[in-house]
Structure formats: structure tokens, C-alpha cells
């Protein structure tokens, strides 16, 4: 397997992790969020800063990143208490933009646009996993573990309550559930998983800066992965992420580098999202049981 293929499969794994995280937020909790890339950045920068400047072990830095992401997600969900879906959507956009600005301008912390170079390989229990076969296995093992956890979550009482809150808040409230607590937990879980993906990405690239992809474009792309796959469906989110990562790189392999242009992707994704909403609200793999109004 050549290094390009290794790279694509590893990157796909990383984005599958992000998609699973967003799936918990969008698919299970019904909170539409277009700011998820902020958590990707938090994980990446936490890893970069803590391993290089504080000398922490990579796994510890990863956990620290998760902690920061969780706290921030909890804070974000606070604003969601009194606010409806469409407001919340724009708020998540604002949240994402805020972090992009911080990544870009807080030079002493993040290196700003000059970035942080020299991030070492991922390491756990004393064994290193440099970019290549090793990291690929680590990433996909993580995917399996996280996916299994989410499947268990979906079937657990907590998961069912979460879906109930998503589908009919009033009913859920009348049965004694606190929507805020459920949404907040979902957002924290999503942020956590995405932060892990960010940490791994930092180890893979060994250099990150504010241009690496922690902004609105990436958030929209991940959102599209989850929605096109079918909201409320975990296999859908995984397939969506894998397809959207593989497609441009496979086109590159067979000789159409410019066909991978972002704008073509965007137009196609945008139109498909519009069409799907009208004609197939359940996405490609939909398992949602929304009742129409």
C-alpha cells in the first residue's frame, strides 16, 4: 500500500471520528451545529502546545484537549437553554468563528498564522505510532471503539431519552426529562470525540497553523458528511465521512487534480442538501423517526 493510500485512509479515519462526534450532536440530540471544527482545533492545539511546551506525554495532552473541549461545549450549550434551533445554528457558527479568530491571533499561545511545527508522533503506553501503518491502525481502532460506544449509547435509556428530547421536547419535558441536560451531555460527548480526532491530526501532520482547517469550511464539510449520510444514523455518518474524504483523493490518483477543487464540491454538496431536505428528509441512510408537523 503506497503512502498516499495510507494517508487517505488515515485522514478518512480522523474525519470519521469527527463525524461520529457531530452525529451525536446533530443526529441524536437534534442540535444543528456548524461550529464543530473549533473542537478539532482545540484538540490539535492542545496536543501541539502541551507536548512541545509543557513536555506532556501525547496521551496526556490528548486528554487535556478533551477536557478543554468538554468545558467549552458545556458553556456553549448553556446559551442553548433559552434559544431555538435557528438561533442556535447561527450561534454555533459564531462560536466556530470566534475560535478561528483566537487560533489566528493569539500568537503567543497558538503561533497564530506561523503555527507550531515539530509535533512529535503519537505515543501511548510508551509505544510510538508515527504517520504510516501504525497511526492508521490507531485511528481506526479509535473509530471502532468510539462507534461501539455510540451504538451502546443509542440503545441505552440515556440515548432513548435523548432521542425523545430531540423529537418532541414538550412531551419529553412532561415525562420529567430536562432537555438542557440531555443536549448539554450530547454536545460535550461530540466535542470530546472531535477533540480526540484533532489531537491525532496534529500528530499526523507534525505542523499546524490557523490555516490547517479549523474553520467554517471544515465545519460545513463535516456537517454535510453527517447529514448526507442520514441524520440519526451512525453508519450513515461513517459512510458520509469516508466518501467525502476518499472521493477527491481518488480523483487525484486517477489524474484529475483540479477536479478536486473545493468549489465544485461545495456546489454539489449544497444542491444535494437542498434537494434532500425537500425530497428525502431522511438523507441517504435515514433512520429518523421525525413526524412531520
Amino acid at each position, binding site marked *: 500500500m503506497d503512502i498516499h493510500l495510507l494517508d487517505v485512509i488515515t485522514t478518512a479515519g480522523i474525519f470519521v471520528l469527527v463525524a461520529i462526534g457531530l452525529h451525536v450532536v446533530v443526529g441524536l440530540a437534534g442540535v444543528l451545529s456548524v461550529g464543530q471544527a473549533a473542537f478539532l482545533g482545540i484538540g490539535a492545539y492542545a496536543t501541539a502546545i502541551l507536548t512541545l511546551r509543557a513536555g506532556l506525554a501525547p496521551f496526556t495532552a490528548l486528554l487535556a484537549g478533551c477536557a478543554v473541549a468538554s468545558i467549552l461545549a458545556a458553556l456553549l450549550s448553556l446559551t442553548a437553554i433559552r434559544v431555538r434551533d435557528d438561533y442556535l445554528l447561527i450561534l454555533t457558527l459564531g462560536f466556530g*468563528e470566534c475560535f478561528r479568530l483566537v487560533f489566528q491571533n493569539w500568537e503567543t499561545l497558538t503561533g497564530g498564522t506561523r503555527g507550531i511545527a515539530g509535533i512529535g508522533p503519537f505515543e501511548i503506553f510508551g509505544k510510538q505510532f508515527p504517520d504510516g501503518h501504525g497511526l492508521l491502525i490507531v485511528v481506526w481502532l479509535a473509530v471502532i471503539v468510539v462507534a461501539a460506544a455510540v451504538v451502546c449509547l443509542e440503545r441505552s435509556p440515556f440515548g432513548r431519552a435523548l432521542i425523545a428530547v430531540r423529537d418532541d421536547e414538550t412531551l419529553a419535558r412532561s415525562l420529567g426529562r430536562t432537555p438542557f441536560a440531555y443536549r448539554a451531555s450530547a454536545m460535550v460527548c461530540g466535542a470530546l470525540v472531535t477533540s480526540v480526532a484533532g489531537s491525532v491530526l496534529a500528530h499526523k501532520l507534525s505542523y499546524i497553523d490557523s490555516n490547517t482547517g479549523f474553520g467554517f469550511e471544515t465545519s460545513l464539510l463535516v456537517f454535510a458528511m453527517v447529514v448526507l449520510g442520514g441524520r440519526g444514523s451512525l453508519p450513515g455518518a461513517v459512510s458520509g465521512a469516508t466518501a467525502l474524504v476518499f472521493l477527491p483523493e481518488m480523483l487525484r490518483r486517477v489524474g484529475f487534480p483540479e477536479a478536486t477543487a473545493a468549489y465544485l464540491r461545495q456546489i454539489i454538496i449544497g444542491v444535494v442538501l437542498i434537494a434532500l431536505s425537500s425530497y428525502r428528509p431522511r438523507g441517504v441512510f435515514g433512520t429518523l423517526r421525525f413526524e412531520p408537523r
Partner: protein
Amino acid sequence: MALLLQFILNGIAIGAVYALVAVGYTLIYGVMKFINFAHGDVVMVGAFIFYAASKGGHLGFAGALMVAAIATALFGMLLYLLAYRPLRRATRLAPLISAIGVSIALRGAAVWIFGPEIRSVHVPAVFPSINIFGAVLPGREIEILLITASMAIVLVLLLRHSTLGICVRAVADDREAAEASGLRAELLIVAVFAAASAIGAVGGVMVAASYDLSPSMGTLLGLKAFTASVIGGIGNVTGALVAGVMVGVFENLAAGYLGSAYKDAWALALLAVFLLAKPTGLFAPAASRKV
């Protein structure tokens, strides 16, 4: 003193643009009870139509502005009919997803047609710059303020006193009752969408003429204008206009005295504060709903 005044003047100039775009969010929310996530990108479309009309079509400022406003109005109607209207009866999240799709597609299309670079349109200023206690108000900003002010006055008067305005307000207040008394709510909504898009387009044109345009300009512009419409009380047109200017001034004062690197973040901070503390805004209409 001159510095403070300069910041305030800069703020009013950009605030006028925020005001126009905020009116769009507020109008659409009023009749549809829905925040059009893609409104900022519609404004971007208007700005690009202006660019194409003045560069390619060689129209003067006034001509290109009219073309942009009318074309964007039509575009807005089309958008409503294709992307939002079919979803009236769908699940509560479907229109939002559609709006996100619209946003993505519009940005991609703009890059495809015009390329991703930032462009500028050279509009010669008709008025001379004036100097107020050491702060400069460039001629072009004066024009922007005049255009915005006149549009604002016309809009508010229309809404308050014309039949059309009363019909729109009726649908905004209580759609079923309005329909019961014979109003064709659907037609009015289409008209409001067109108007919101046109007004937003004028705002976009102001940005293009005075600053720059790029396919991604709609994102931050939309966010800040949305902040203004929240602060002004969502659904309140006068509130949106006033709040737009307020946001512009606040942003410039903060950027001026606290640091210009995070200029865009100040408006976002305002949004967060308001959504946490007072989501109904400063000038909420009398019958304020839980948002």
C-alpha cells in the same frame, strides 16, 4: 478626542450596512418565524451582481445598484420557492438544513463564477470628505449614510402607514387570523422575501463600493447583522436599523481601544451576551414571545 470621533464615524458607516442586512433577517423572521441562515450569502450575491453590472455591464453606480437590487429580489424569491417553501410542512430541522445547503452552494457558485479572490469596485465619490474636529468622514461614507437613511425612512413609513405594510405586519402578528380575513399570506411572504433580499443587496453593494467583496463575505456580515437583529428585537424593523448602527459603533470602539486583531469577535461576544441575558433584545415588540 479626534480618535474617539473617528472610531464612532467609522462605526456608523459600517453600522448602516449592518442595519440594512439586519432588516432582512428581521423581515423574514417576522413573516416566516424562521431565521434565514443563508441571508448573508444572498447579500453577497447582490454585491457580486453589482460588481458584474458595473465592471462587465459598464453601468454607473446608480444603474448597477438598481440592477443588483432588482436581480437579488428576484433571486430571493426564487430561493424561497425552491428551497424553503416546499418545506413548510416538513420537520422543524429541514428548512435549516436546506438553508445551510443554500449557503454552501452560493459560496461555491460565487467562487466558480468569479474566482476566490477579493475584488474591489472603484466607485468615485460624489461628495467631498468632511472634517469634524479632526476626524474624517470620507465622501463615499456620506453617500452610504444618505442612501441608507432614506431607505430606512421609506421602509419604516411603508410598514407603518401603507396598506402593504399593514398587511405584512398582520401576517407577522398572526398568520392564521390574517389569512382568515382574506389576506393571501403566501404572496405576501414571497414579496417580503424579495424585499428583504433587495434591501440586503443594497447593503452588500455599499460594502462592495466602500470596502471589498469576496465569496465568503456573507458569513461574518450575516453574523453581525444577525446580532443586530437580535439586539433590536427580532421582528422589529426599527429596532434592527438602530441596533445595526449600534453594533457597528461598538465593534469599532472595541477594536480601536481594545485591539483590532479581534475586531470580528466583538460582535460575536455581543451576540452571546444578548442570547444569554436578553434574547428578546432591547426593543422587543410589545407582545414579546419566548424565542
